[in-house]
Each structure stands twice: as C-alpha cells, then as structure tokens.
C-alpha cells in the first residue's frame, strides 16, 4: 500500500473518486483540479427544472474533472423549460439537463391527485405532452438533452389496490418516454432508479423542499451527475469499444493450467461456479450490444481453447471472442497487440483481471487503458459487471454496432485467406470487394454520426457530428453526406465510411472524410474518388478542396490526399489544404472494387 501521495492533484483526485466525500471537500478538490485540466477540454450545460437544483452543477463539475474535462453549468429560470432552452441555445451552451419534479407540477401534486377531477389530470397530461413535444423538437442544436424521468416524493400506503398517485406518475412517465423516443439527442435518466438505489430518505430532504423547493440531497445529485456523465460518455471524452478479459479467476473460478478443465468452477448450479456463470451471461449480453470481447491471459493456449470449445458450463464460446492473446508475454504488450489487431485506440479498451499485480502493471504501462479488478469477494462480482454495463451501454447503442464481433471475425477470416495468394492484388481481387455509396441516406443518420464520433485514426479532419448535425447537412441544398457500405465475399462490413461535402462557389469542399479502420488497406479509400469527381462535376464545380487537420491519432492519414493525387495548396505543420482542379485530376482506378452509387 502506498500511503504517501505524490502531489496535491493526486490527493484531490483521490478525494473526488472516494464515495462519501463531503460537499465541502468536493468543492475544495474541484478548486485544486479544475485549473489543471487542459484548456481545450471543456463543455457547458444548462440546468432547467421546476425545483431548485443548483447544487447539481457542483456534481457535474466533479464528474467532468473525473473524466478530464471542465464542465460549466448554469441554472435556468424556475419552471420555464422552453424559455431556458431558447436562452441556453442563444448563449451557446452545448447540452442541457431537464429535471421535471413530479410533486411540484402543481403545488403538493401528490396530495392533490386524489382530490382532482380526472379531466383536470388529463388536461395536465396533455399540456405536459405539448410542452415536451415542443422542447424535444426544438432541441436539435443541443449535443445532449438529458431528461430526468418523474419520481415520487412520498410512498403509498399499501391498501391492496393500485395506488392513484402511482397510476398518474406511470402515465406521465409513459408520455415522457413516448415524446422523447423519436429524438436522438434526448437521453432519459431514470430518477426512480436513483431513488430506489439510495432510498427515499437519502434522496430527498423535505426540510429544504418545504422551505425553498430544493428537494434533492447531495447524494441524489451526485448519483444523477454520474449518470449524466455515463449517458454522455464522460462528456464525450471516451468511447469504449472492447472488453479484454483475463481467464483464470475472471472468466471461471480456479486455474485451468493447474486444476485442469474439469477442475475449474463455471456452471449454473454450484458455488462459486454460478458467480462466473452469471458474469459470463453479462459479458455475452455486452457482446450482443456490440462490445468486442477479447481474451488476454497467461496460460497455455490449448488449455483455454479446450475450455472455450468443450467445457459444458461455459456461456462464452469461440465465436463470441473477437481476438485472444493467450501466452506468457506481459499483458501490456498483449493489450497493445489487441488494439492494433482490432485497429482501435488503447483508450477504447477496458481490461478486467483478478490479479492486483496485473492490474497495476497495466495501469502503469498503459494509463489510457481502463483497468478494473475482479472483486476479492465472489458475491461482489455483480457490481463489477454493473460498472461495465454502464461504461459500455449508458451512452446508447446503435443497431449496426450490434454484430461487431461477427464483422471483426469476417475480417480475420479474410486476413487468413490472404496468405494463399501470389500477389496482394490477386488476393484483393479474390475478395470480391464492393462499395455502395449512398447520398443523404436518412435511414443511417445514427450510424453515420456514430462513425464521426468514434473514428480517430482514418479521419482527416476529426469533425464530430451529432445525429442532428448530420440530418441538417442531408437536408440542406449544396451539402451532401456520402456514406459507404463495404462488402466482400465473407460478408458485409456495414456502413464504414463517411464523406461530408459542400459546394462553395465552384468548388466542392470536403469537410470530413473518415473510415472505420476495419476496411482500410484494400483500396476502398481510393475507390470513392471517381464518385466524388462525378458529384463535383454534376454540381458544376471546377475543383475539389480538402484538408488534413492533425489530431493525436490520425498521423496515418497525414499524406492521404497526396496519395489520392490531390495538389497541395497550403502546408502548415498541423493543417494541410489541398486544392485540385477537376480538369487535371485522374483519380486512381481500383480494378478489384466494384463501386455502386
């Protein structure tokens, strides 16, 4: 154990991550840590409610610091969510938290319900619906609109029949969910779940509610802020893609190399086998939602294969594992290899191991990897899987992400096929690659936005776009959203490339060009140029303009436009502008790819 702390920043950070740190100490730690954050990492939120939730700002700042970004939050007017939205948008705030408080919809609403004629409650529901409808349809400029669902302030006496207050609450929440559903930027946060988790007495403080309409305790707001951070992927600071699991005492109980395949604990009917069986069900559920599962274990590969393929108690099977590194190398090297093979950044990995030594060595060698240790008590394992679910899923999942593992495995099969061919081109031809280019395909707005958010390496300008941004581009004249769907004989890689273009006078300007690294290296990135030239010509353009803006991760495309044959127009260290007259442009032909538009 290390009791001495290196610097005040570390001490303050430790305070913030410790549950139960008091409000005053939290504020003190924020004062120390906020000035240390990089200046470019910041975000702003507006808070809107029909009760006073000022203190939420403090806990949002805390979550911001923990995620490495400076959060500024400002409070709106009392019970004026539409006015707040207009003011927040005008002030350039990026996101908004809206927390309607059930008991204050009307004064003492929970007590009033039994006295109100049903028509009046219907009226109220209608007017709320209209307000929500307006709010959600006008919130397109926001990155996120985080909306708390309604919860009760009191508890019902159990009379044996359905409680009228609960019935109204359920109706209103259903209306809220229904109105929110079509809107991509709206994320609901389940406040009833927070109240259940903390207990009503720890979540609301009637003293402050009755005196000054300030119902929530610090504990409630702390938890709410944490859920906001999860729903926004740490205010857009992370996007976890792969879960890397150790095997012994992580996937199963015991050590397969010593206990043998029959000696390990993994089955639904005994202890501790059922602890691991439950955990594997959770891992598999994550895989179904698009999380890539990988193994990183110090073992003989044959032992682990034997268990994966044949052990009757296993939930996870070889087809669920995107890639495995089972060997005696150090785990940091194996994690690097996994990231490289999947073509994702190390900061997209979450690593789980039971050994404190392995966890610590990965933390120190690869601080960008999120490391979680399996709890010492088997009964605490569910907390770990819960944490994993919030890390991977709370930000939402798009349908296309769901068969990720299958797509990566196809790519692997393709890699293996490569070795049989005389030349790389023969091999590429054998793949029967095809690229379908769609223009302004509104059905894929979510996936396109997701790709702009997630792609780092093959991304020329790293322009992040919300679904609303993409939709706006699609619907504007003189702007085009091109999306590429790549397939080969092994299967479809899905929508894996995006080009955002616009016409400026007689030039086609490429605002963004990005691809999932899964499809790079086969010529797809060059096969799209004839389509771009056609688009430019059809729009009466004489030239194409494009730029490369350096980020921490996109060095591999620094010379992409040079390779594509565009003329360099202005060369600055981190920012290159290319301008190419169509008359002099001969895009490469990629014989082995069939392009359809």
């Amino acid at each position, binding site marked *: 154990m290390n009791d001495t702390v290196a610097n005040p920043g570390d001490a303050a950070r430790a305070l913030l991550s410790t549950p139960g740190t*008091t*409000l*005053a100490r939290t*504020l003190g730690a924020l004062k120390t840590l906020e000035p240390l954050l990089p200046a470019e990492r910041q975000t702003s939120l507006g808070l809107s409610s029909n009760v006073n939730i000022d203190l939420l700002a403090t806990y949002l700042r805390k979550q911001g610091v923990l995620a490495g970004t400076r959060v500024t939050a400002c409070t709106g007017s009392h019970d004026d969510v539409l006015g707040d939205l207009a003011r927040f948008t005008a002030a350039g705030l990026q996101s908004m938290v809206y927390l309607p408080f059930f008991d204050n919809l009307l004064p003492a609403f929970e007590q009033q319900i039994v006295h109100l004629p049903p028509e009046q409650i219907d009226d109220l529901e209608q007017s709320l619906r209209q307000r929500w409808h307006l709010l959600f349809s006008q919130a397109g400029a926001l990155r996120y609109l985080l909306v708390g669902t309604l919860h009760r302030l009191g508890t019902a006496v159990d009379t044996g029949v359905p409680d009228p207050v609960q019935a109204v609450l359920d109706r209103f929440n259903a209306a809220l969910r229904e109105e929110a559903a079509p809107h991509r930027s709206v994320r609901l946060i389940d406040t009833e779940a927070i109240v259940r988790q903390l207990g009503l007495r720890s979540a609301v403080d009637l003293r402050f509610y009755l005196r000054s309409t300030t119902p929530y305790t610090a504990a409630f707001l702390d938890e709410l802020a944490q859920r906001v951070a999860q729903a926004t992927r740490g205010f857009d600071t992370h996007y976890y893609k792969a879960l890397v699991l150790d095997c012994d005492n992580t996937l199963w109980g015991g050590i397969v190399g010593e206990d043998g395949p029959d000696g390990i604990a993994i089955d639904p009917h005994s202890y501790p086998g059922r602890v691991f069986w439950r955990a594997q069900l959770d891992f598999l559920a994550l895989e179904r939602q698009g999380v890539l599962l990988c193994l990183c274990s110090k073992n003989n590969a044959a032992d682990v294969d034997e268990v994966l393929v044949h052990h009757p108690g296993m939930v996870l099977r070889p087809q669920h594992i995107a890639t495995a590194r089972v060997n005696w190398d150090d785990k940091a090297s194996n994690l690097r290899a996994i990231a490289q093979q999947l073509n994702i950044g190390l900061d997209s990995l979450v690593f789980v191991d039971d050994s404190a030594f392995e966890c610590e060595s990965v933390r120190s060698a690869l601080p960008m990897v999120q490391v979680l240790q399996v709890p010492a008590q088997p009964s605490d394992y569910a907390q770990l899987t819960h944490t994993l679910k919030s890390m991977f899923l709370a930000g939402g999942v798009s349908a296309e992400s769901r068969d990720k593992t299958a797509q990566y495995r196809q790519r692997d099969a393709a890699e293996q096929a490569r070795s049989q061919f005389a030349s790389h081109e023969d091999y590429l031809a054998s793949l029967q690659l095809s690229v379908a280019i769609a223009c302004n395909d509104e059905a894929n707005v979510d996936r396109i936005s997701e790709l702009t958010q997630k792609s780092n390496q093959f991304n020329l300008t790293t322009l992040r776009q919300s679904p609303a941004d993409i939709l706006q581009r699609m619907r504007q004249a003189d702007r085009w959203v091109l999306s590429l769907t790549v397939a080969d004989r092994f299967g479809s890689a899905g929508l894996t490339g995006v080009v955002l273009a616009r016409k400026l006078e007689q030039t086609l300007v490429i605002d963004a060009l990005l691809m999932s690294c899964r499809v790079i290296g086969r010529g797809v990135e060059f096969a799209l140029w004839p389509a771009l030239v056609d688009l430019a010509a059809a729009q009466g353009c004489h030239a194409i303009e494009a730029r490369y803006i350096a980020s921490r991760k996109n060095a591999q495309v620094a010379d992409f436009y040079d390779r594509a044959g565009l003329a360099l127009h202005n060369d600055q260290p981190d920012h290159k502008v290319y301008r190419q007259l169509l008359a002099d442009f001969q895009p490469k032909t990629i014989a082995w790819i069939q392009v359809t538009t």
Partner: protein
Amino acid sequence: MINEQALKDVMAAVLEVEVDLISEATSMDTVEAWDSIKHLTLVLAIEEEFGVSIPDEDAADITSYTLIRLVLDEQLKRRAA
C-alpha cells in the same frame, strides 16, 4: 470544542472565497456569493461535515459566521450529551 478552522474551510469552499477572508465579521452582507441558494448549500455542507442536523427554525437564520458557530456549537454539545 468546535473546530473553527474546519468551519472556516467549509464556508470558504462553499462560498468560493479564500479561507483568510472568513472571520468573525463574515456574514451574508459581506460575502457577495452568499445568496439564499448558496445558503442552503452551506447548511447542507456544514451538516455533512460535522455530522449534525441543524433544526428547521435555525437553518434559515444562521446568516453569519458567529451565528453559524453558535448553532453548530449547540448541536455538537447536544450530540455529545
């Protein structure tokens, strides 16, 4: 005995001023940031830090350093007794 330094630390943190500025003379009138909203946060923070519950009737009225110290001292003695 009340830990005055701890009390000053809490007040400084919540009111966002340097701790040297908290003195016998500090009150809602002398600290710009100390409005009715901040006041709630302050009461909450003091209760949490010292493990006491300040009675409803006092909570709104303790609008200066000396008043807070007085009420806090009472609550700490009550808890000890």
